[in-house]
């Protein structure tokens, strides 16, 4: 029963993938093609592009990504906890408060260190 629950989702997925592929395929054969050298350079508002776009970018984004992973794991951990919260009662609340408090220590540290500041 469990697996058959997901059968409609699978069908949905097949339909959606089919739709996307057919659309891209159709547009590539229907649309006309007229290639000119100007069309084929990266679009930079009419300026001639200098260099490639494969450049290193601000390390801030990596920090955000790492923070996201840490706190998203917290969120994922909260989901099953929330579902059985009524059975865990006050015990569950205290345990989760401790868990969140530990993560909040890290959050405060990150905050005070300025990892969330964007100049």
């Amino acid at each position: 029963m469990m697996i058959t629950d997901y059968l409609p989702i699978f069908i949905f997925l097949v339909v959606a993938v089919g739709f996307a592929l057919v659309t891209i395929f159709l547009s590539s054969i229907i649309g006309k093609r007229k290639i000119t050298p100007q069309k084929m350079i990266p679009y930079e508002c009419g300026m001639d592009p200098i260099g490639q776009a494969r450049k290193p970018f601000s390390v801030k984004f990596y920090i955000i990504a790492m923070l996201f992973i840490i706190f998203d794991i917290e969120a994922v951990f909260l989901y099953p906890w929330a579902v059985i919260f009524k059975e865990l009662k006050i015990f569950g609340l205290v345990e989760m408060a401790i868990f969140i408090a530990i993560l909040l220590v890290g959050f405060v540290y990150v905050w005070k260190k300025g990892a969330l500041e964007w100049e």
Partner: protein
Amino acid sequence: MNLVIPEINWSAIGPELTLSITAMVLLLLSVVASPTARRAIPYLSLLGIAFALLLCISLWGKSAYAFNRMVVLDNYALFFKIIFLITTALTVLMSIRYLKEQGYEHGEYYVLILFAAVGMMFMASAADLIIVFLGLETFSLAIYVLAGFFRAQPKSIESSLKYFLLGAFSTGFLLYGIALIYGATGTTNLKGIYEFVSKAPALTDPLLLIGMGLLIVGFGFKVASVPFHMWTPDVYEGAPTSITAFMSVGPKAAGFAAFLRVFLYALSPLQTDWIWILWVLAVLTMTLGNVVAIAQKNIKRMLAYSSIAHAGYILVAMVAADELGTASVLYYMLAYAFMNLGAFGVIILFGRKGEENVNISDYSGMAAKYPLLAAVMAIFMFSLAGIPPTAGFVGKFYIFSAAVKAGYIGLAIIGVLNSALSVYFYLRITVMMYMRSPEKEFAKLEPSPAMVIALIIAVFGTLQIGITPSHYLNLAKQSILALM
């Protein structure tokens, strides 16, 4: 739905909890408090360590399983926890002035050291391979960062990166070993593995044997045994000296704590299969460590190879695997903590920013200018070489007699020969200090009170354990009952 809440026994992980809470509070302090208040961080971390130490002593003799048999409280774990706490405390004491001199006075340093200690303690009290892995990762991650703590120094960064890459690689081996053992036995619980293995006829499942081999690789890396030692000299040389001191004792002890518990307890029915591997490892480790140490010009590299050699001696005791052998591992680890940390303490004190004084030739003529410091260094060198009446001598004596008693006479002979070899390069330092004239002017030394305390503790420990060894051996023997 029927929900079973596992029993929670806070006291079983009391020391770990104490240190974790201290570390978290200090982490907050390091960003929230005013710059003057931040100076209290090392002292507060000492307070937390002292509290954890008291807790360990008050828990002595109790034994309990906690958290669904994930964690065990017994004397064996407590003995190692005390070693870790002493190591951490001495490291903190030695670091205070050193960090200030080098201009890296950040609270995070102490926080990371405390978290590393927590990881090591979990490794000692692990009753499940999962906890072994968690503990290992916890302290490894902290030490990867600490090794690169002097982030403006390329050598420090190099050391950190090397340790991280190789460490992550070896952790993969360990984890794979755990997975294979889980596949073979259906459990990661040490007791469950023991019961499974003792019931099963020997040498049936290749999965189990491969898993065991991978565990040896993983642990072998952390304790720096040949052929998994390649990282040691570079990492030890580049890391901040205080961290080198910490690294040479803490992870090694933690590695052996888990190594012993897994192999001498959970996998003990397979002893005939793994003992010859360890025999070979022990011989290789001792010999390579000692021979290569002779050729070193940098004292940190020399001590790195010496720490490899000491891992070899401890492996000899593990091969003996009887009561005396196991107890001597614990005894030796305790002695090693004092003497090795002490030696690094002298190196820290003797160097300063811009003038590290880490070449062996820098030590020539030191005795004339600083007789007391030279005497302290000589004690540690004697102890590392295994000359009476120091702790190092008694430790080696116990180890080799255990090997003889267990019938590994060849191994004991190789060990003794190695030990004789090691006298050469340890005593070379002493000779340099006392019998050569100085090569250059010595700058004025101003030891901080904390460093003085640390050195006094280290000297006292080295001598005390060496002079009244039976007391400590008895403690060690009490501790290993849980494994037998």
